[in-house]
């Protein structure tokens, strides 16, 4: 297979195609592991998930089992969750708070900064076990954060996270700036399986084209409740489109049809919430000026950070990451992000808003899952019908629209450049 030929781009003809074997091939999946998941910055977790000293969580990222924790001095670590002795996973709980970690297999112990902490009688182990680091928990090669979003990279020579994120930083700022005291992950989030290739969710998460055909029942629901507000903002800010953020990242931004707990009121939220949400909006405008404040309040943004992180600031804020388990199967983790110290009623409203659309029990996400799984099934016909068409908007003069497919083309160009690289 010539990997570069999996993608055909004809700018003059206005055609962009992706071969469906990119979604089905085990060979492609192996190359993705080597050239994408071992080379790109991957989302690990949010700072608020390990808010206190000695807090830890365990998480699978990039095909690895990791410990994400804060040590006694408050420093953040990401360790490979495997005992340097014989390999057992050292931490088996999902989360907790501990002064040390102890492997249950033979009892090797570690301080929460990763240092080997067992003391055996003389004759059992040489000095290098204690001083040389060979018995310490192994750190991931690179761990860096931006605005409380922590990322790992398994490539020691990767560019700094800040360079990698490129234009995505501006859009992370639009989320992180929503509360002066910072943002936090609310609860444990949702973990589920989709029987489809992971790239189908990457595409879907920033795809406005499918919105009305797939989610008509969601929009019907908004209409019934009086939660659909389509009128314009009254501001002169009219940006509604798509931005190539570099390195395969892309965002779509558009006027919201739905309510936003921060800070766009709709009638279904109730009259009592109206002044509260107006005050939030005033606060944002005061801090950031009319244009940026209104943009943060009114507009929705769906962002994909290559390869597998979605930050959608829509009727609620969701952080979503997904990993291939097989060419036709992915595991998805999704969290709700809210303001730190948020008022109880607003937090409740935020979570209520999240669930009306998002997640396996929402009024929209399950239909996305159905679409993705149907695509994956449809790819069984790839010998006869081999290509996906991702051309929408190519002949357009001027900037792309948010319901064009340029954002997916950004993803696929990056994918092509990385998958075809010599590993």
């Amino acid at each position, binding site marked *: 297979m010539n990997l570069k030929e999996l993608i055909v781009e004809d700018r003059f003809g206005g055609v962009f195609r992706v071969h469906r074997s990119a979604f089905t091939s085990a060979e492609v999946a192996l190359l993705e592991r080597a050239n994408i998941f071992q080379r790109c910055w991957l989302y690990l977790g949010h700072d608020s998930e390990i808010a206190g000293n000695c807090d830890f969580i365990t998480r699978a990222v990039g095909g690895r089992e990791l410990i994400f924790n804060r040590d006694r001095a408050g420093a953040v670590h990401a360790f490979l969750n495997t005992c340097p002795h014989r390999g057992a996973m050292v931490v088996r709980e999902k989360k907790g708070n501990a002064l040390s970690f102890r492997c249950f297999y033979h009892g090797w112990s570690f301080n929460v900064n990763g240092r080997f902490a067992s003391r055996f009688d003389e004759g059992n182990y040489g000095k290098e076990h204690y001083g040389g680091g060979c018995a310490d928990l192994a750190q991931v090669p690179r761990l860096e954060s931006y605005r409380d979003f922590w990322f790992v990279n398994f490539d020691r020579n990767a560019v700094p996270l800040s360079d990698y994120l490129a234009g995505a930083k501006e859009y992370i700022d639009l989320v992180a700036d929503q509360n002066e005291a910072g943002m936090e992950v609310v609860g444990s989030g949702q973990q589920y399986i989709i*029987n489809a290739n992971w790239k189908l969710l990457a595409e879907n998460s920033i795809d406005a084209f499918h919105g009305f055909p797939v989610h008509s029942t969601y929009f019907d629901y908004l209409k019934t409740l009086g939660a659909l507000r389509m009128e314009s903002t009254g501001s002169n800010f009219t940006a509604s489109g798509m931005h190539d953020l570099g390195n395969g990242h892309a965002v779509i931004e558009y006027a919201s049809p739905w309510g936003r707990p921060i800070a766009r009121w709709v009638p279904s939220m109730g009259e009592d919430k109206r002044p509260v949400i107006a005050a939030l909006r005033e606060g944002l405008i005061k801090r950031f000026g009319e244009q940026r404040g209104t943009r943060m309040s009114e507009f929705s943004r769906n962002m994909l950070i290559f390869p597998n992180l979605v930050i959608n600031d829509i009727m609620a804020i969701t952080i979503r990451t997904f990993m291939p388990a097989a060419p036709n199967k992915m595991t998805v983790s999704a969290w709700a992000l809210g303001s730190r110290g948020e008022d109880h009623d607003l937090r*409740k409203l935020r979570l209520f808003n999240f669930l*009306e659309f998002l*997640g396996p*029990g929402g009024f929209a996400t399950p239909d996305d899952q159905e679409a993705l799984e149907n695509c994956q099934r449809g790819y069984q016909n790839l010998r006869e019908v081999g290509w996906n068409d991702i051309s929408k908007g190519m002949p357009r003069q001027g900037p792309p629209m948010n319901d064009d497919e340029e954002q997916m083309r950004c993803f696929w160009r990056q994918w092509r450049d990385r998958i075809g690289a010599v590993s």
Partner: protein
Amino acid sequence: MRRNDTAALRGRIEDFLYLEADLLDEWKIEEWFALFAEGATYEVPPTGTDEHDPATSLFYIADDYVRLRERVVRLTKKEAHSEFPRSQQRHMISNVRVTGLADGVADVSCNFVTYRAKRGVVDTYYGKHLYRIDVNAEPFRIKSKRSVLAMDMLYPGKLTIII
């Protein structure tokens, strides 16, 4: 309450829960919704945790009465794509216990296994239902239903049917 009374009440509640299960099995979803009292709630908490307040942690489902009604309305449409064509379901209930009774409202818990079949894939959901049931009403009315999955993640991926 005397032992015989408890057993009799449990028997009536079991009949009621079997009726509920049958309505869901047969996709009589509007009739199912009619089993709920006005103001009722329907919830599915997150898996693998003991988080129990939808105001402070992210559930899978946290419907008030209006959203539950709209969930049912949605499921009657063929544009609810995840249930078109409709899946087939079977709801199994066991270990029914009446754990409290006050002011005509019974606290009821039971184990459940729900199977959902579609396009050659069988999804299995299992856990415990926690109900508050108005047993003075005739017929009984559900005041709240919480389905606590005994799964550490949502393996079936979707929660489109009422488990």
